[in-house]
């Protein structure tokens, strides 16, 4: 092998020279070819570090593939060639300022991956800048860079936490997963940073990419355990099988009658509600993380919603099955009921891998109860015959556990196991012996036949554990098999030197016990064995022999102890408890690496216990004060109006103004409430190639022409490049009278702009169709107004109203009796509903049960009078007087709909 390695060494040196030459050539294709070969070397784990100077020169190449391969190389070797790596930094610094967000992001990505301590300040600066970048993608990259910088220089922690705090406030779903990941790496204990973002994270969760979901869910699980009180009923124990604790809790309950009933924090509920849909994710890690969240946070009766999804995961790859089965094993110990209906999903197939088989067996054993034990045992019978002997042995263990847990079947199991003693396979026999030993220990009295049977088999059994078990059994119950025991000891004396250590130890034990009970027959044998043991190679055996001799053979030195030899050696011993290997796994959070390995993994974060008293809930409150887009413009238009009250909540914007008409008669008309302002979609960003548009009716007089309806359009650029020359193109019908907004020269990515336009709908609800154009594209859009938007409020006195109404009778009157929804029966809410449907003005009324509203159509100025007369049993008579009869019937329909529903 030596000369081979020299050869390849020379060869690679030669090749390196060639590669250097290729990299320094002026041909792009040669450079690329060289880089491809170098990446091939890196992939194979070969050292290509001496090419560093030649490679780093190409970092600013124009060819994207070449550049990317250089990045790969740079990140791999920068740590070894720190000085040379610095040569590339300025290229990245320049790219960080590039107008294209993807180039900025990729520059930050590579820069932060270069593990050279000297550039820490540069990285820090770049991260801080990127964290406030307009592009969410760049901000996401900065979140990733935080972790890289932290692992390079933990001293930067405080500054990095500041950046994390800033990024946690980010509303982009792109950023959420990455910043929470950074949080978990850098400062998982700073729970206080989460409070204000908790609700936002819960609400964003469904739209975050799948890997981010896993990280966020696991962080929120820990958060919830520190902030909310336990939803598990006081005193009710975790273990549904634990009867003693159950009775204890009865007593406790008496004391706690006066305690407040548990009410779940709405934020706690929010988390449970928003994670549930993710059980349908195709990503198995997401499903598992929701399952563990429910396990650790949900009220007991809700946990079972995760069962079906977990069982579904068993259809996935072998490795997925392995992890999921481990978690189900832990769950099924405490909550049999969750998985019992799916018992058959855990039946073993001959094609399963051994570790899958054993886990399924574990779960089946956990699920066994009086009702299903016969089915399970029948299934086990098939497994015992398996060709996979390790699995057959595990099945025997499982049968033993079923036998101890369910007393009804103990005898059946024992008989079955005895039958297995005549099995041809040694492992099976050995395992049976061990399990039988444990079972017999629980009820030794009735079973001396079995012990005799086992003694007979003893010669044929070679597995040491099984031999040791039989010896122990015979020793322990030697008085029940007085004839057989000494004979077994005789055989053992013959083969003692050839036995395994554990068999020797048990032989010594057997000898000692027989010496105490039957010294006449066995005294010499015992002495012979003790002598052999005295010179054994194993010090355990020498030690044991010396101890036993002192204990059982009385001499002057042995003192008081030997009097108690019988009581020491033949004391009744407690039967072993056969427990699941997953019994205490729940000390680890489910779904974690630590749970899977049953040891605490590096960086494992403990799940805290529920606090007895919930910490302050208000820390999660977030004041949302956001300007409502249309408010300022409304105020401007009604500059004569005096704003009385202004109430803004998250969804609606109402305000009450007292309105002074500009007409000579000063009529004090109280015109309440505009809105809510409903906005409608004009252009979806997907159809608009990134350009999206929404419109709403601001309900203000149109500035351009009095017969036009004012429309406000909000344009948003959701693409990554700026859009130019946004304007209105062709319209249809061609006669459509429309006042366009001025051409928008340039709209930057993420930016939005609101413009007003005017449309003459000619008092009809026919849609106005036109084209919204950018420099490169045209999109057909249409605005269809509701009939109520074609009106303008008109102010008049009650007398005038009645006079005008008198002129518009007969054909011009439309009326209907409607049933009011309970919410709309009060006069105030009735007005509110009418005003939300139609842009009309309230006419003050002298009668309590009659509400009058007046308006004019925008185009022709025809009067529209609305009267609502509330009657008994929440009905109302709606009357509309106008000569525009089509509008009247449409308006009536809209009003009816609005008033009939809440």
């Amino acid at each position: 092998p030596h000369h081979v390695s020299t050869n390849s060494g020379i060869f690679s040196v030669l090749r390196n020279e060639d590669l250097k030459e290729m990299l320094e050539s002026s041909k792009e294709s040669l450079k690329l070819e060289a880089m491809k070969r170098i990446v091939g070397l890196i992939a194979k784990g070969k050292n290509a570090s001496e090419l560093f100077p030649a490679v780093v020169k190409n970092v600013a190449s124009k060819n994207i593939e070449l550049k990317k391969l250089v990045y790969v190389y740079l990140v791999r070797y920068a740590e070894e060639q720190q000085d040379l790596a610095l040569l590339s930094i300025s290229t990245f610094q320049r790219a960080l300022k590039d107008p294209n967000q993807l180039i900025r992001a990729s520059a930050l990505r590579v820069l932060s991956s270069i593990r050279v301590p000297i550039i820490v300040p540069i990285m820090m600066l770049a991260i801080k800048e990127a964290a406030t970048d307009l592009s969410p993608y760049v901000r996401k990259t900065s979140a990733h860079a935080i972790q890289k910088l932290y692992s390079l220089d933990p001293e930067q922690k405080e500054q990095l936490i500041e950046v994390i705090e800033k990024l946690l406030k980010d509303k982009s779903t792109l950023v959420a997963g990455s910043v929470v990941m950074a949080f978990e790496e850098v400062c998982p204990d700073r729970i206080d940073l989460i409070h204000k973002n908790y609700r936002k994270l819960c609400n964003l969760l469904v739209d975050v990419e799948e890997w981010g979901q896993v990280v966020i869910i696991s962080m929120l699980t820990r958060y919830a355990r520190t902030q909310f009180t336990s939803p598990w009923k006081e005193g009710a124990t975790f273990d549904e099988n634990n009867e003693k604790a159950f009775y204890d809790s009865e007593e406790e309950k008496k004391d706690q009658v006066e305690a407040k009933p548990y009410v779940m924090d709405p934020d706690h509920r929010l988390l449970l509600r928003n994670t549930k849909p993710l059980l349908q994710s195709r990503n198995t890690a997401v499903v598992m993380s929701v399952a563990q969240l429910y396990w650790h946070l949900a009220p007991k009766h809700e946990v079972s919603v995760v069962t079906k999804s977990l069982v579904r995961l068993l259809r996935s790859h072998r490795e997925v099955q392995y992890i999921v089965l481990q978690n189900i094993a832990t769950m099924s110990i405490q909550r049999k009921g969750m998985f019992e209906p799916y018992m058959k999903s855990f039946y073993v197939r001959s094609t399963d891998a051994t570790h899958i088989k054993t886990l399924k067996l574990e779960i089946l054993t956990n699920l066994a109860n009086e009702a299903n034990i016969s089915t399970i045992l029948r299934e086990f019978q098939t497994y015992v015959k398996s060709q996979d002997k390790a699995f057959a042995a595990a099945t025997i263990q499982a049968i033993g556990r079923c036998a101890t847990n369910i007393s009804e079947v103990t005898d059946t199991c024992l008989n079955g196991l005895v039958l297995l003693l005549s099995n041809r396979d040694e492992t099976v026999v050995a395992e049976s012996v061990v399990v039988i030993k444990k079972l017999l220990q629980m009820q030794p009295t009735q079973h001396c036949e079995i012990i005799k049977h086992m003694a007979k088999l003893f010669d044929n059994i070679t597995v040491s554990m099984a031999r040791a078990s039989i010896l122990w059994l015979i020793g322990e119950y030697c008085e029940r098999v007085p004839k057989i025991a000494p004979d077994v000891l005789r055989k053992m004396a013959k083969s003692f030197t050839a036995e395994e250590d554990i068999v020797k130890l048990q032989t010594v034990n057997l000898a000692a016990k027989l010496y105490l009970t039957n010294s006449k027959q066995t005294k010499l044998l015992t002495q012979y064995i003790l002598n052999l043991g005295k010179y054994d190679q194993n010090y355990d055996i020498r030690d044991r022999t010396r101890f036993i001799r002192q204990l059982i053979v009385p001499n002057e030195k042995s003192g008081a102890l030997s009097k108690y030899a019988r009581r020491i050696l033949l004391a009744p011993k407690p039967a072993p408890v056969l427990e699941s290997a997953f019994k205490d796994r729940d000390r680890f959070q489910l779904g974690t690496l630590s749970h899977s390995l049953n040891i605490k993994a590096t960086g494992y974060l403990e799940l805290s216990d529920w606090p007895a008293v919930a910490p302050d809930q208000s820390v999660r409150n977030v004041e949302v004060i956001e300007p409502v887009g249309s408010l300022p413009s409304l105020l401007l238009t009604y500059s004569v109006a005096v704003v009385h009250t202004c109430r803004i909540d998250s969804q609606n914007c109402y305000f009450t103004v007292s309105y002074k008409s500009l007409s000579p008669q000063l009529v004090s008309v109280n015109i309440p409430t505009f809105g809510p302002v409903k906005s409608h979609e004009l252009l979806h960003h997907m159809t608009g190639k990134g350009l999206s548009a929404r419109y709403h009716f601001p309900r203000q007089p149109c500035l351009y022409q009095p017969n036009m309806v004012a429309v406000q359009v909000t344009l948003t650029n959701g693409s990554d490049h700026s859009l130019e020359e946004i304007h209105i193109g062709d319209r249809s019908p061609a006669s459509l009278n429309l006042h366009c907004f001025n051409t928008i020269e340039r709209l930057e990515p993420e930016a939005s702009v609101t413009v007003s336009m005017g449309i003459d709908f000619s008092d009809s609800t026919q849609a106005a169709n036109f084209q919204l154009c950018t420099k490169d594209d045209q999109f057909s859009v249409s605005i269809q107004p509701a009939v109520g938007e074609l009106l303008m409020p008109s102010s008049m006195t009650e007398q005038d109203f009645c006079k005008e109404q008198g002129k518009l009778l007969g054909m011009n009157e439309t009326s209907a009796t409607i049933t009011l929804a309970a919410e709309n029966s009060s006069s105030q809410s009735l007005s509110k509903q009418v005003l939300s449907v139609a842009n009309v003005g309230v006419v003050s009324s002298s009668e309590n049960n009659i509400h009058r509203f007046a308006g004019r159509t925008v185009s022709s100025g025809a009067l529209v009078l609305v009267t609502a007369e509330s009657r008994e049993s929440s009905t109302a008579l709606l009357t509309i007087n106008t000569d525009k009869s089509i509008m009247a019937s449409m308006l009536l329909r809209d009003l009816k709909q609005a008033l009939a529903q809440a």
Partner: protein
Amino acid sequence: MIHSLFLVNASGDIFLEKHWKSVVSRSVCDYFFEAQERATEPENVPPVIPTPHHYLISVLRHRIYFVAVIQSEVPPLFVIEFLHRVVDTFQDYFGVCTEAAIKDNVVVVYELLEEMLDNGFPLATESNILKELIKPPTILRTMVNTITGSTNVGEQLPTGQLSVVPWRRTGVKYTNNEAYFDVVEEIDAIIDKSGSTITAEIQGVIDACVKLTGMPDLTLSFMNPRLLDDVSFHPCVRFKRWEAERILSFIPPDGNFRLLSYHVSSQNLVAIPVYVKHNITFREGSSQGRFDLTLGPKQTMGKAVESVLVSSQLPRGVLNTNLNPSQGTYTFDPVTKLLTWDVGKINPQKLPSLKGSMSLQAGASKPDENPTINIQFKIQQMAISGLKVNRLDMYGEKYKPFKGIKYMTKAGKFQVRT
């Protein structure tokens, strides 16, 4: 999270390594090799192995171990799911995921791995985005590349990554607009010695191949959505709409993808489309055993059972077999003791059978267990659960696409105990 990745072949050689943080020496894989040696079968290597300073999480696909090196606590499924996604991507790009294919395309592999993880955290795992970044190699493109020196790496930047529909690439154009959906159901069953069903379930998937221009918005509804008991969706499916109306509404990714996987509610009785008559006996003291197997169709709703393949792991004591198939071909591997019988189509008039004798090791005692028989089959044009697609509509685009729906039933893990 994921520190490094090593690819290990069946003979225990590392043939590719990739590090996302500082370099971890490949000697860490020694712990993996130890576990590999201990395992009797390749599948028996535990997926999670602790070592003194790292944790190794591995998946085995196409006889290649993908071993990820982890340094601290992470949900193991996170890593496993990601590794499988890597394999799926390789398969998507190279058609097969073999050692040879990976070695041949090592540069593309490296470019892919570079994009899929940043500092060990998944970045771009959607095939649509990756294909925008790195074009899959085709014979034509490889030739053109060698001649012209152009590249695999997309000149375009991955705008899809930034959009609200990250699974769909932008600017998709086709001259023929088509959307095909395959409803594929698999029956998992264990049949006992006497022919009665111990457990049987139906799992199904809807795989789609959608080649539509622009940004189509599709809805797909079922005649009998109640059959679906438990579902999991591609992220494109609008969950709320499903909850409220049991309609699948989605903007599809471009190309092939799995829209939905489902489980048919266990209340429904599962129709078992084949039956097996078997008589496999070993006699004590004799060095001969009898093997007699007949297959027949049942509950197939008149459809033909095709591509039938029977396989069985015979007991170790069997030295050789002398069997006679009434149709198809059979092989027996005396080393692995694996018997396979490629039956083909079942003709109900003339049922296929495999009869003959097995020679056993002389003097050895008779095997305890009779072998389990695994059966694979396909039935075209039928979803065994009775699931039917009602309609498929497209919104958001003006052209008329060509739509097609195909049904198929397959055996999943279908075992007969004898």
